């Protein structure tokens, strides 16, 4: 069968004056009809540029140096714009930023209709609308007919990505280029989107070029994988062969870096066993809730309650690496704001060393702030761009009353050494530093105050695997040296598996499961935990299959909570009781808890409260 797409000797250069660089060099490959071909590589390897070249979307400062992109034996790169526009019907593209891909001021459905009419002028408007609704329904967008008239801002990220897949598939293209489509999505939603794409290749006879920065994700979707390293195609093999017998050193490294979940026992920090009594907790949450009032649109003065965090109770002990995991909107960031006293809870108390942090003020509050420091997610926006690195690290000390310039300078140098920042950066601006280096600055800025607790809000999620490895090693070293307690807020179970000893799983504002690392990954008590585990991108044989663990759909809104168990709308094991009764956290074994009616051990309130 003749390939639908063949790329030959493609070379693309960056031609910014002073920053000339080769982005892609001598790339050649074919894609057969109905085939899904994966493209993987590190960030900056040139994957996105490749996917854009395939849809003829190379604009200055990028220039095509040499080569062809042949689609049905026509070289796209030399087609005049009008001809190319006609071909858009057969070559579709879905990108990594679903929220920005459509005009925010017009209904989604109308914009998809607009696209059909642009690439297939023979379709009437009414016909186009019917097709859009039918296809929205086919990608399982609930109540597609009503959703047709909704605006992009009313769609969640996952919904929007589905809508864009509809937008791409509506003209029945022969080739779909999917550039990192699952990157902004939560794991459970991403798993659904990948499944959807596989179904679509069969239903629509479409070939897919599936670009992803994650090898597990690509291997999930594709039958053959291309590996790109620094602009060169270094390996091309069927998926199974690539994983089991990678030939190129870069591929071997890539495969080796994929975190192992079940096959390797991680060296989680040893927790002082004696420090397990409730009264030794360094941080305790007692029935903590946070409710926001949001204005209801379309009413005069109506507000509704958004219950971001509901009745959360747990203890964190000194030396713990505690993780709070969950998908977007589960309340983990609100929990971070409560733990760090950026906000006070509307119900319950947060205790630090047995004292209610909501009552702190003045010097006490400052002392608490010194004790608990935050490390944020975004390594770029969290550093002031026009402040020297040394000055940045001195600022917290000055805030906390240090005055002697010499001592401040010495302390900052010590900490920079500690976190592995070269002291020569002291007088430099953070410009041009890598994400990893920037996160080290963030860690240093927290460590400079000698805190006891570090609160890591998605600290590692902006980094690639290699950087994550290095920073986790650093965290481990710091923990041993300074006796730190870590609280990780994360959506990344693989990272949590490596770094944390105790894990709380949140869903819709509630802690649904609280367990030690081994137990959580090998014997999860809550169906939602199983769902998360089943959707994790991994190269290992799965313990849980996504098809068994999750129904289609997305988490309900925290404004309009379901009655009974909040997970029941997506739980394959839900039964009548789940509709009416909200499950309590039930004890499993000695100290693990799960909030599910199917956990059979008797519930005793006293134990649940003391957990």
């Amino acid at each position, binding site marked *: 069968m003749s390939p639908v797409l063949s790329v030959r000797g493609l070379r693309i250069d960056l031609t910014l004056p002073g920053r000339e660089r080769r982005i892609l060099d001598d790339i050649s490959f074919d894609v057969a009809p109905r085939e899904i071909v994966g493209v993987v590589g590190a960030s900056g390897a040139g994957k996105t540029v490749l996917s854009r070249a395939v849809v003829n979307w190379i604009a200055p400062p990028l220039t095509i140096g040499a080569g062809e992109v042949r689609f049905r034996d026509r070289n796209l790169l030399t087609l005049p714009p009008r001809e190319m*526009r006609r071909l858009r019907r057969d070559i579709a*593209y879905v*990108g990594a930023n679903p929220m920005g891909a459509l*005009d*925010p001021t017009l209904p989604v459905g109308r914009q998809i209709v*607009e*696209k059909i009419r642009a690439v297939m002028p023979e379709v009437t408007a009414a016909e186009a609308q019917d097709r859009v609704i039918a296809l929205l329904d086919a990608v399982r967008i609930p109540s597609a007919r009503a959703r047709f008239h909704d605006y992009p*801002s009313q769609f969640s990220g996952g919904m929007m990505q589905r809508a864009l897949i509809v937008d791409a598939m509506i003209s029945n293209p022969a080739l779909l280029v999917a550039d990192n489509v699952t990157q902004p999505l939560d794991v459970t939603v991403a798993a659904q989107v990948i499944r959807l794409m596989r179904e679509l290749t069969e239903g629509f006879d479409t070939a897919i070029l599936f670009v992803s920065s994650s090898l597990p994700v690509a291997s999930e979707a594709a039958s053959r994988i291309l590996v790109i390293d620094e602009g060169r195609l270094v390996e091309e093999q069927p998926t199974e062969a690539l994983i089991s017998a990678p030939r190129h050193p870069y591929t071997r490294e890539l495969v080796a870096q994929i975190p192992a979940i079940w096959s390797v026992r991680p060296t989680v920090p040893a927790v002082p066993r004696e420090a397990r009594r409730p009264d030794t907790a360094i941080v305790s949450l007692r029935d903590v809730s946070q409710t926001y009032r949001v204005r209801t649109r379309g*009413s005069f003065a109506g507000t509704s309650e958004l219950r971001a965090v509901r009745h959360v109770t747990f203890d964190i002990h000194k030396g713990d690496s505690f993780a709070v995991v969950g998908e977007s909107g589960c309340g983990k960031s609100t929990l971070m704001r409560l733990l760090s006293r950026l906000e006070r809870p509307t119900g319950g108390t947060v205790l630090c060393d047995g004292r209610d942090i909501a009552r702190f003020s003045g010097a006490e509050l400052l002392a608490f702030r010194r004790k608990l420091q935050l490390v944020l997610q975004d390594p770029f926006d969290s550093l002031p761009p026009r402040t020297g690195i040394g000055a940045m690290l001195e600022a917290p000390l000055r805030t906390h009353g240090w005055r002697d310039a010499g001592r401040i300078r010495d302390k900052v140098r010590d900490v920079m050494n500690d976190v592995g920042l070269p002291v020569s950066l002291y007088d430099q601006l953070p410009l041009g530093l890598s994400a990893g280096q920037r996160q080290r600055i963030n860690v240093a800025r927290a460590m400079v105050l000698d805190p006891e607790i570090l609160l890591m809000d998605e600290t590692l999620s902006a980094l690639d695997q290699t950087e994550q490895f290095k920073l986790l090693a650093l965290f481990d070293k710091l923990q041993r040296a300074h006796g730190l307690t870590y609280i990780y807020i994360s959506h990344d179970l693989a990272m949590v598996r490596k770094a944390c000893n105790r894990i709380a799983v949140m869903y819709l504002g509630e802690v649904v499961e609280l367990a030690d690392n081994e137990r959580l990954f090998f014997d999860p008590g809550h169906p939602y935990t199983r769902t998360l585990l089943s959707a994790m991108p991994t190269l290992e044989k799965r313990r849980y299959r996504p098809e068994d663990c999750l129904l289609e759909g997305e988490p309900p809104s925290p404004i309009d909570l379901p009655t009974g168990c909040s997970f029941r709308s997506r739980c394959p094991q839900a039964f009548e009781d789940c509709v009416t009764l909200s499950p309590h956290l039930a004890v499993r074994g000695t100290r693990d808890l799960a909030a599910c009616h199917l956990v059979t051990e008797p519930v005793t309130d006293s134990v649940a409260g003391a957990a």
Partner: protein
Amino acid sequence: MFVLSFLARRLAQGAVIIFLVSLLIFTLLRVVPGDPVRLMAGGMAPEALIEQIATQMGLRDPIPVQFGRYMARVVQGDLGQSFVRPANGAATGGANFNDTTRGERAKVMDLILDALPMTLQLAALALVFALVFSSLLGIAAGLRPGGIADKLAFTVSSVFVSLPNFWLGIVLALLLSVKLGWLPAIGYGGFSYTVLPALVLAVELSPVLIRTLSGAVAAQMGESYVTVGQVRGLSPTRIVAAHALRNASVPLLNLLGVQFSSLLGGVIIVEYIFDYPGLGLLTINAVLQRDFPLIQGIAIVTSAIFVLINILVDLAATSIDPRLEY
């Protein structure tokens, strides 16, 4: 439903704003120096008579009492009577206190209603001129930042923003009316009398509009839906006309709401220069004559118009971009 609740909420807010403006103007007018009764009665009137008239008119009562009495009438739609203007003719003031030729004094409402349509006509024409001109230049500049249109837009805005309106008014009158005889300049005798003052106002408005529009269009053209739109198969014309301009119009609309106040301010000077019988000219004369009820009336009407325009602008903006909430 959304529109109704929006209007109810915003009109309520607007009423509060108008009340506060009235209170402020009323109080300020009564604490600044200058006795209106002296002006009304004439320089020769005896002191006792002035006191008598002032007491009769309630001008010696405490300010809150006066304000309450005034607002009670305002809510019934009665803005009071002018201190100095007769109902039948032009402004006098300063004549003899017992001048029998003076008839009934004019109602403030009537004076404003006579002048307001003139000013609205002027403002609307100025807005049309400014919008047409700024759109042409601003959109062209925004589509190609750094291009010829962008440079031209920058030069034109810089020149326009530095032209004082009183100077430009006089120069244009000299050129277009006196030298070329194309347009009439002074007074009002038909629609053509509006063109020249409107031009002057448009020049004053344009620079900000051009900058906002070119900035907004350039920002929208950098949005990912524009680039992705091409890959989705939309034509460049369609992307600009149906999407980029639609989005770019929101900041422009918001700006117009604010610019309207500067338009009403600009009107005062321009109307004075061209002796255009609108609200601006009325304001100047009222101030010069210490005509308290007229000044108050103009202030209330102006602030009401300002509030209404901004409600309309916000309503238009929300209907374009549903994410906005006011």
